């Protein structure tokens, strides 16, 4: 038996890096955005006793060893999802920690000035920088409810009344089950329970993996983390989006408000994930989520289903050449995600020599197809020797419709159907995945923005400064913590995290009412910042340089007054 690293249980999270994993991130990097790679990404919508779960499956290993299991309370429906939903959700609700810079005194590096000059008015700048027909199995005693295929997957829905027949059926039918599943699967085995099992269809590769959409009847959405623990990584990120009528809450996990003084504000809060790991670990049993965004669905409105997007299938099918086909896709905002590329590669493969000799990856190839198949091909015919394509526009348009257009428009329609979006995040290690988180709503809770603002004030003084890097500065975080940089902010690469807890508050959020605060670390954070000599809590400290300048003005004024009196 081959290595057992190959099962993805509910998208469990081996960091998957496929060549074809186009992230859809076409925006330039934003220095105020911390980089977090979540292991598990799920978007839930809950309405009328039905849960819709969009699940991104991450997997690293060979296609033949890929398997995926999900326990469900009722017979589910399965559809294809889209990676673009997750890339758009990630980008548009990403926590951002921006530093607004304020220049006190005569700062030569104040970008609002034309040059050196007197004047003390503070100025602010922003550094923020289709499936086939299904079939049932009527064999007596078989746990199979039905099996079918959709997109790149073969799947089966199995009765989970008892464990052994189900595991045996999976083994007999070449669905991969990892070691350890026997023990972890126990809580999910009951009369009336079901398991959804996925594997890749023959001829499909890991790059063909596509998110799935599972719909099932349940009052509340839940993540079967106990089962996920079988193959999870330490500090695995779990990113959840909840669509509904109001703000979502973790029902049986704590809620943490992080101590934002722990963040490396001056370097785009790159230590964000470390702060989350430390903060959630301060909650009982390390079971806590952080809210990263809660508010209207506006950031996702018309993102996936913008009017006119994808054009008309018949027009795409009527194109006369490969270049015209891909040109139509580009002009109608088709995303070059792994799903799109999987379809294109089937019919217009990337010339192997072009890939081998020039390192040209599929997204580059298709996004500039007219160049590669035009002038480049004319000038480098040797790289196209033996290359053939199978341009079938009608077939390609249909596959794109099934695998890209329909799932993307359906995902986009969720943001028309639901008014409110919540983004929650936590990290857990396998040994702490001993309780399945359940999510609910409390519409009375306040919104939670994803953009956070700190303020960095440079104290340049009356006589000018020593340059931006060496000028004393004070950072006020959004929560109001004040951190002094008496020697300037020049050496910001060596961030010294202040002492104290990483969570400012640990709360219980319930379906009604305000948060119940179980731990309030405000005073200990203030104490830690004060004791460390690097800052004071919730108030600020006048800069010595600024005090000196004020004192100079007072002395000068008194001298002037004395001269006038003598003169009088």
């Amino acid at each position, binding site marked *: 038996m081959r290595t057992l690293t190959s099962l993805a249980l509910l998208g469990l999270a081996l960091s998957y890096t496929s060549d074809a994993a186009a992230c859809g991130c076409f925006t330039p990097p934003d220095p105020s955005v911390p980089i977090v790679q979540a292991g598990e990404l799920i978007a839930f919508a809950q309405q009328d006793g039905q849960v819709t779960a969009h699940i991104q499956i991450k997997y690293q290993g060979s296609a033949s060893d890929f398997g995926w299991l999900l326990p469900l309370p009722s017979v589910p429906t399965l559809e294809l999802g889209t990676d673009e939903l997750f890339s758009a959700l990630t980008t548009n609700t990403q926590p951002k920690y921006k530093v607004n810079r304020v220049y006190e005194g005569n700062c030569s590096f104040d970008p609002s000035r034309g040059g050196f000059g007197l004047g003390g008015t503070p100025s602010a700048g922003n550094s923020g920088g289709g499936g086939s027909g299904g079939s049932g199995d009527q064999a007596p005693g078989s746990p199979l409810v039905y099996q079918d295929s959709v997109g790149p997957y073969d799947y089966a829905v199995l009765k989970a009344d008892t464990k052994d027949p189900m595991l045996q059926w999976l083994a007999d039918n070449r669905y991969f089950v990892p070691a350890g599943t026997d023990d972890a699967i126990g809580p999910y085995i009951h009369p009336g329970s079901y398991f959804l099992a996925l594997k890749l269809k023959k001829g499909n590769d890991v790059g063909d993996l596509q998110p799935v959409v599972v719909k099932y009847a349940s*009052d*509340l959405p839940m993540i079967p983390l106990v089962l996920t623990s079988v193959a999870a990584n330490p500090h695995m990120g779990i990113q959840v989006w909840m669509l509904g009528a109001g703000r979502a809450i973790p*029902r049986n996990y704590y809620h943490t408000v992080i101590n934002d003084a722990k963040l490396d504000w001056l370097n785009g809060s790159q230590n964000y994930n470390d702060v989350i790991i430390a903060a959630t670990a301060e909650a009982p049993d390390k079971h806590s989520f952080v809210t990263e965004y809660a508010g209207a669905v506006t950031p996702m409105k018309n993102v996936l289903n913008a009017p006119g997007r994808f054009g008309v299938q018949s027009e795409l099918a009527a194109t006369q050449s490969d270049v015209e086909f891909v040109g139509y896709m580009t002009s109608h905002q088709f995303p070059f995600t792994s799903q799109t590329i999987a379809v294109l590669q089937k019919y217009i493969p990337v010339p192997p020599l072009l890939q081998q000799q020039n390192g040209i990856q599929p997204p580059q190839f298709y996004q500039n197809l007219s160049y590669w198949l035009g002038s480049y091909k004319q000038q480098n015919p040797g790289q196209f020797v033996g290359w053939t394509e199978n341009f079938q526009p009608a077939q390609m348009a249909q596959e794109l419709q099934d695998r890209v257009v329909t799932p993307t428009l359906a995902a986009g329609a969720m943001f028309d159907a639901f008014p409110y979006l919540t983004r929650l995040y936590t990290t857990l290690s396998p040994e702490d995945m001993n309780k399945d988180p359940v999510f609910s709503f409390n519409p009375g809770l306040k919104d939670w923005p994803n953009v956070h603002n700190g303020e960095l004030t440079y104290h340049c003084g009356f006589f000018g400064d020593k340059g931006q890097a060496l000028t004393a500065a004070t950072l006020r975080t959004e929560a109001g913590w004040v951190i002094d940089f008496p020697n300037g902010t020049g050496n910001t690469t060596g961030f010294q995290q202040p002492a104290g807890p990483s969570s400012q508050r640990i709360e219980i959020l319930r379906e009604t009412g305000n948060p119940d605060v179980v731990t309030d670390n405000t005073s200990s954070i203030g104490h830690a910042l004060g004791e460390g000599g690097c800052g004071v809590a919730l108030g600020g400290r006048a800069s010595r340089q600024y005090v000196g300048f004020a004192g100079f003005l007072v002395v000068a004024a008194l001298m002037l007054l004395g001269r006038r009196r003598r003169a009088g």
Partner: protein
Amino acid sequence: MRTLAFIAATGALIAAACALVGCGGGGGMQPPPGDAMLALGSAAQDGSGFVALGGDATLVPGAQGGFHIWLKYRVEGMAPEKVKVHRESHRVSDDALVLLADGTQEVGAPAADGWWELPAALPSFMCPTPIGINVIDERIVFEVTLSTMDDAPLAKTSAEATVHCPDGDQAAFCAKICSG
């Protein structure tokens, strides 16, 4: 005097209806805010049938590793229409909230006895419970409210039961995730 007689007659009618539909426990049926009559019950362990909800109720393991109580209701005295269904479960001892759930339901035509019954029992989510909320061996009140899609009240009812973990393999796991 006539008023008392009317109240007594109404009470007798309600009791008779209750006996008919088998509602039980802590008052499975109450005079509704609208004209409709709502009776709340439960189902057998496998989700079938309509049984009284009251006395003791055993938590039913759900496929995703949780536990629920089956809820089923019957409606009398209203025309077929789509209605809003609001469900709440509270711990009787301190009124702590166990579940809030909202949904809609297409109420169909009544059967020959004048009652329309929910086709399939609802698995009313219980566990994992909210943090700090134990439900094991606790009296829980289940409330169901029906209203029109315009939020006009139609009917409201409640029933109480003391919930217990199942015996056997599930007992320890149930105790772990239902104790808050």
